[in-house]
């Protein structure tokens, strides 16, 4: 039997992309983990803190710790929420429970890659060309892939995982590390720049030959999909958990 895992499903995934939550849960269960989704969960507090309103995150953070401190590990299909819990959970007193939560929270890709060390997904097959999008939190905060600005040796945890899926092919966009422009509240306060960045991002993947954009972050994809649909860029979106869990499309 595996660890006791608390599953956190970010608010926008709960509301708009339930399939991503389901795929994450089923995938972890398939890998022999004991997963629980505490149903009272709300949000990690990131939107308020990123806007600068740190004290307004306190209630969300306290609730999060209350619900999750009893688990061995907390796993979530989101890089930015993971980064928030790990690096920015500062609105509340740093008790042992808070420290436990911060130290044991994982984004799904890093949990699969680093903790469970899974490399094969024999049940999965995805005979399509995909463009991989790393959110900036996953890339530059969690460091799940090498960053082009630093010239470090190339690695990519999400690509390593996806390489264990039958039939998958990768497209190479011209600007793989460029931010897609979601940026949380940035997407509304800087609407024009945000939407333009999103459009440029989906076009880059489309021109590289991607049929799908795959990412570990649904928030980026929610924004990118909105830009693609408005501008009739013919590209589809899928969360990495869905592919790894054996989605057929």
């Amino acid at each position, binding site marked *: 039997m595996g660890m*006791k895992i608390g599953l956190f499903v970010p608010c926008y995934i709960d509301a708009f992309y339930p399939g991503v939550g389901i795929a994450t849960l089923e995938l972890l269960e398939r890998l022999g983990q004991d997963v629980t989704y505490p149903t009272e969960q709300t949000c990690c507090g990131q939107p*308020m803190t990123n806007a600068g309103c740190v004290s307004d*995150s306190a209630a969300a953070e306290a609730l999060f710790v209350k619900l999750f401190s009893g688990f061995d590990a907390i796993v979530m299909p989101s890089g930015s929420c993971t980064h928030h819990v790990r690096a920015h959970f500062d609105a509340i007193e740093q008790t042992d429970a808070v420290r436990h939560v911060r130290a044991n929270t994982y984004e799904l890709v890093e949990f699969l890659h680093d903790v469970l060390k899974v490399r094969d997904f024999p049940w999965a097959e995805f005979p399509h060309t995909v463009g991989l999008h790393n959110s900036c939190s996953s890339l530059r905060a969690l460091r799940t892939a090498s960053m082009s600005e630093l010239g470090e040796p190339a690695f990519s945890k999400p690509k390593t995982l996806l390489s264990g899926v039958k039939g998958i092919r990768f497209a190479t966009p011209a600007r793989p590390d460029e931010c897609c422009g979601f940026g949380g509240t940035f997407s509304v306060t800087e609407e*024009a720049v945000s939407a333009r960045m999103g459009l440029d991002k989906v076009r880059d993947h489309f021109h590289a030959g991607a049929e799908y954009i795959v990412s570990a972050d649904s928030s980026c994809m929610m924004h990118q999909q909105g830009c693609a649909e408005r501008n009739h860029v013919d590209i589809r979106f899928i969360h990495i958990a869905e592919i790894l869990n054996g989605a057929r499309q």
Partner: protein
Amino acid sequence: MREKPVNHAGAAVAFIADKPHLDFHDARLWDMRQKRDAQMHLLPEWQDLRSRASAIKEHALANLADYLEEFERNAKSNGIHVHWAADGAEHNRIVAEILEARGARTLIKSKSMVTEECDLRPYLAARGVTVTENDLGERIQQLDDQMPSHIVVPSVHKLTSDVARIFARSYGTDPNADDPHQLAEAQRLAARPVILHADAGMTGGNFFVAETGTFVVCTNEGNADLSATVPGVHIATIGIERVVPRMADLGVFIRLLSRSALGSPITQYTSHFRGPQDGSEMHVVLVDNGRSARLGMADFWTSLKCIRCGACMNTCPVYRRSGGLSYGAVYSGPIGAIIDPTFNERKYSTLPYASTMNGSCTNVCPVKINIHEQLYKWRQVLVEHHQMPFVKREIMHMAGKLMGQPRLYRAAINGTETALGTLPRFALYNWLNPWGKNRELPAPVKETFHSWYRRNRPTAGKATPETVKTETKA
């Protein structure tokens, strides 16, 4: 009266609407970023250089007063006049007095961001001094009465056709002749007589060296040398943070500067100024203008390490798609967004939000300024100082309360709770409305993950963490 914050988002709308300019701007700056990457890959010691540069700057800033005084002593013994300017007004007064003492009416000037900070040109113009910029991009901006939009390539937001129109207006050239070589020649012909007959020359300075009492100016056009060699007087304006302790330190920065800025191994000209020419005077004006105060800001002092390479601007996806002028400040882009609020918190309160905090700026910075973390920190400071717009502040406050109450939150997600607290609905929806201007909303779903889970895992999830813990132990 309270000053209005810069409307970066609004200016960006106009910038993006102009597709030829937007596309050129984005491609040109991205090309500089790629050339920078290529240079980085050629130097295995790149990350070590960045660490050294950062350490030298931090050391120099931590001992700033000592190094400044050491420079002053050594510069004086080299025959350089050293002046201290506490702010922009004092700087401008000092420069005007130097010019007045010599009866200088024309000044040929190379690019200097500090003089932009101080608003020197209008000050001198009002005193009858004609100032001519001799950096090509800066001159274009001067003729067009605009601030530089980039600290290294000041007119990068303009196409050659724009320059042709500006030169036609000022120099009487053909407004449709937009061949870059012809335009450069037009500027050369216009500038040469001004340079030959100028009464005084002025430059900035990229670095000054405490141990030698000398300073260094890096350019690609050689324009600083043309300003500096004007007979009579050479005035150099430099920010106090630009000091390096020893000549040996300079190599670290010279290797990083142009590689980071333009992706070229070195600037075409790296000129060391050691003292006045025979029969001339040399003046260095060391400008504080808020720098000492910034040095005392625990979260922001490292922004003083900046060597003004512009790499953060070139890599910034927001800057590339909004243009430098949209920041409404002397310093634009990521570095501007963390420096500008130190000059005027209210006016520049919007700039730390003109970022997705993606972190690319921090990665390219040759002196390792944690730019995106300072953006993050600035947002907290601005909220604490009541610089966030009321509606946004209220939304965050409300959202924060909602997120702490599972039942109310669930009701809101399910759409059964319509009154989201106290804020009028129109305010909330007006604030969120921009999403749909250029984007579709996500498609509605049949059920949330939450209700799926309750249907499919009916016995799970209600356990409190304590019981989970107990079960684990059992």
